[in-house]
Structures are given as C-alpha cells and as structure tokens.
C-alpha cells in the first residue's frame, strides 16, 4: 500500500545554512504522526514543504502518490491544513466563513460537524473571528477542518496559544475524529504532553537529520533512563548506544534502548566506575529530552 505522505531525500538550505540533508520518511494511512524536534531543526520547514509553501532545495515530496508541486487542485479537497496559531480569515464571522468554505467542498462538507462544535463555543453566529479568543479561534479552525472531512490533516503547532482546557479539547476531538474515520494526521506541537495523548508514531528530529522514527508505544517501551552514582568529575565515554550521558555532582544520567543487563555489560566493558545503577520507564517528553539533549 502506498503511504499517504512520502518524502524522499529532502534537502533544504536557508541561504547557506543547511537545515537538513537527504531527509526521507513515510506516513502510512490511518496513522497519526507527530514531528518532534527542538527549535531550528526544521519542523516548520517540513510542514511548509508538505503544505506546498516551500520549494525544497532538492528532493521530492508526494501526497497520495502525487508530487506536491504539481498535484491537481482537486486533490487538496482531501488535505486539511491548520496553520500555526489557528489562523483563519479574521474579517469573517462564524456563518460567513462556513458559507465560504462549504462552496469549495461540495459533496463532502459536513455542516453539522462545524456547527456542532460552534454551539459549544457560546459565541454569536455573527461574531467576527478577529474578536475571538485564541481558544475560540482554534475551535473555528478545527470545526472547519472537521467539516471538510479530509483524508489527511496537516497541523502546524496546534497547541500554540491555547490554554490547557482548549488543548485537551482539541486533542480529544482530533483523536476521536482520526481514529473513527481512519484518517492520517501529520502534526507538530511544541507541547509534547499533548502529543503523547494523540500520536501513534513519532519522528524526532535533530539538527540536520532524523534521530528516530517509530511508533510511540515502541519508543516508550524500549527507552529507559539509567541513573547511577559515579566519581565526581568523571567524563563519560559510553559509545553510540547511549544518548546524552551527563554527570551532575556524583550522579550520571543517560538514556538507552538497551535492557538493564545489557547496560551493565556495556558499562563494565568500558570500565565505568559506577554503582547502584537504576533503570526507569519514562514518558514521551523525557524520552524526547533524553534523545535530543537539553541543549
């Protein structure tokens, strides 16, 4: 089965600054994929390329098997796009914006999905979007995407500017919508806790490359935080099976997909002067920090 999103050998520069080189990934149908990465690793760049608003320096991106820059306009019926900050036409009110969008999606527009969400907002139907709070605006943007009922959703930092209540609401609606309709979602967010609740797979980006791409369950099952006591001032040299080992005082902390006994073997092999080694299961946020480092 062809993946919904297929990116091959993407390379992009801003001026002379390389963002990433030969980046490739696929998103299969029915999966919710979160793109994680620190600032400047190219999340927005990737979203921009995927939504067709940035021509990569080289490489190819296909959605539904068709090149993004030459896809027929009708294909965009099945791609829902949420801009960073839930941007929508400020100059329209709730009714006008629904009337406008519905004209572009004959046969697929679910008016009720939109107005169902709007009813919960307790705003007048003639209220201008420019005079709404960020949270209300996010619901309008979400409502429009739900009404569009696309096969693929691309969401750029959906948690930006939202308070916890609206974030939770957004995540729950989206999760329900995606799983019920076998939709594919590609999203970024700077709040990783929100992602944990939502995504099936994750891509964690580091500067210039993809660190890992795997299902979240697999990630969280596999990765451990290892802590141990160690002589003060020890400089760890643990090899590439350990992520970002760091020493604070006489405690060392590192992350690895190895089992406890494998870690002990590795440490002994390297003559690391450790004692009381402990392994912990961790959440997505800690896994992200463990894999990418704090700096």
């Amino acid at each position, binding site marked *: 089965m062809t993946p919904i999103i297929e990116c091959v050998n993407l390379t992009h520069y801003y001026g002379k600054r390389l963002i990433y080189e030969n980046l490739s990934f696929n998103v299969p149908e029915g999966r919710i994929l979160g793109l994680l990465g620190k600032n400047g690793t190219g999340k927005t760049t990737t979203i*921009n390329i995927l*939504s*067709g*608003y*940035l*021509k990569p320096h080289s490489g190819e991106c296909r959605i539904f098997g068709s090149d993004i820059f030459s896809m027929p*306009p*009708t*294909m*965009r*019926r099945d*791609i829902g*796009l949420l*801009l960073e*900050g839930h*941007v*929508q*036409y*400020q*100059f*329209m009110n709730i009714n*006008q914006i629904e*009337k*406008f*969008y519905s*004209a*572009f*999606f004959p046969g697929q527009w679910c008016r009720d999905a939109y107005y169902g969400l709007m009813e919960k907002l307790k705003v007048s139907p003639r209220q201008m979007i420019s005079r709404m709070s960020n949270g209300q605006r996010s619901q309008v943007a979400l409502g429009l995407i739900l009404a569009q009922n696309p096969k693929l959703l691309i969401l750029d930092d959906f948690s930006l500017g939202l308070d916890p209540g609206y974030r939770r609401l957004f995540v729950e609606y989206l999760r329900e919508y995606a799983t019920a309709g076998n939709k594919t979602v590609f999203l970024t967010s700077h709040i990783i806790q929100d992602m944990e609740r939502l995504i099936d797979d994750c891509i964690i980006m580091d500067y210039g490359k993809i660190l890992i791409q795997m299902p979240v369950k697999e990630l969280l099952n596999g990765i451990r935080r290892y802590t141990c006591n160690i002589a003060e001032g020890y400089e760890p040299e643990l090899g590439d099976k350990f992520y970002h080992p760091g020493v604070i005082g006489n405690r060392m902390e590192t992350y690895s997909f190895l089992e406890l006994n494998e870690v002990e073997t590795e440490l002994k092999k390297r003559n690391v002067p450790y004692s009381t080694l402990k392994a912990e299961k961790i959440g997505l946020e800690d896994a992200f920090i463990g894999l990418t480092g704090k700096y």
Partner: protein
Amino acid sequence: MIKAIFFKEWIKTRWCFFIALVVTTGMAGYSILKINKLVSLKGAGHLWEVAVTRDALFIDMLEYVPLIVGIVLAVVQFAPEMQRKCLKLTLHLPCSQKRMIFSMLAAGLTLLLTCFIVNFGVLYACLPAIFPSQLVWRFTLSAFPWYLAGVASYLMASWIILEPTWKMRIVDITISIFVISIYFLAPAPEAYNSFLPYLTIYTFMLIVLSWISVSRFKSGKQD
C-alpha cells in the same frame, strides 16, 4: 466557487467600496457644482473660452482620486490575506491557484470599475447641459489616463502587497512609481489620445504581475 471567492472579497472590500463610491462621486459632484457656480458667476461663455484657449478641464481635482482609490482598495483587499500568511489558506483551497488569484483580482477590478463608471456617469449626466459634445469628449479623454492610473495603481499595489519579502517590495514600489508617473505626463488636454488604446491594454496586462508575487510566496521566499 467563483461566487464564494467574490463573496469573500466582497466582505473584505464592501466598506472601502462604499466609501470610495461616496467620496469619488462626491468629488465628481463637487466639480459639477463648482462648474455651475462659475456659470452663474461668469456665464457659460467664459468657461467655454478658458476651456478652448487655456486648456482648462474644470475636473482637475479628480486627477489623483482614482490613483488613491486603487491603492486603498488593493490594501483593503490583500493586506488581510498577508496578515499571518492567511494567503496559505486561500491557496490551499481545492481550486486552481491561478483561477483563485485572478478571480480575486477580477472581483477587485469589478468594484473599482463600478466606482469609476459611476464617476463618469455623474460627469456625463451634468456636463452636456453646459458644454458641447467636443468639450465633454475632451474632458473625458483627458481624464481617462487618470482612471487608467487607478486601475494600474490597484494592480501594482496588489502585486506589491502579495510579494512576500520586503526587499523585493521596495524594488516593486520603485518600479510602480515610475510606471504610474507615465499616466501623469500630459502637457495638454487629450495628449494621450493616440497612446490610450495601447496604454489601456498594458494597464490591464499588469494583472499578471501578481502571479509573480504569488509564485514567490508559494516557493517560500521570505526576508
């Protein structure tokens, strides 16, 4: 689909359109009032005489009005699209992007031309009572480049606003200033007569410039 595009453009521009209509029609009306006042003070003969011997047009106050209306309309119509890159939403709609952009420009042009036609309507309703057809025609042809400048300023301002980077905007503004100045070179009434057909074609061809900005926007150009 086209109806929906016009609907969105109408929501953005309707206030600007009504104000432009009232202001420009008001100014055309005021010119007529001034002419009537001159007729009652000095007689129509005096107006004919200065129109023939001293190239007076009597509607000079309208000279830069279409230019300003064109710029304001473009700002009102396209600045909201560029606010927080709303244009991404517009271009993402399942409609050919060319069709989208040119329909938006067509919507703006329709409003602009409606406003201008009403202006000419006011002049045509009143001037033939005072002046012979030769002079009415002379005033109209002399004012025509000003209204073309209004169309050009609308199309060029749209091009500038849709441009995603400030560096290119400055370049575009410089080019536009020189282009617009071509519409205001008249040393005498009816100076543009033989140039007008070509200038009109060129003016409406300026509509394609916006596509350069949109293409740059789509390829992700930014400051």
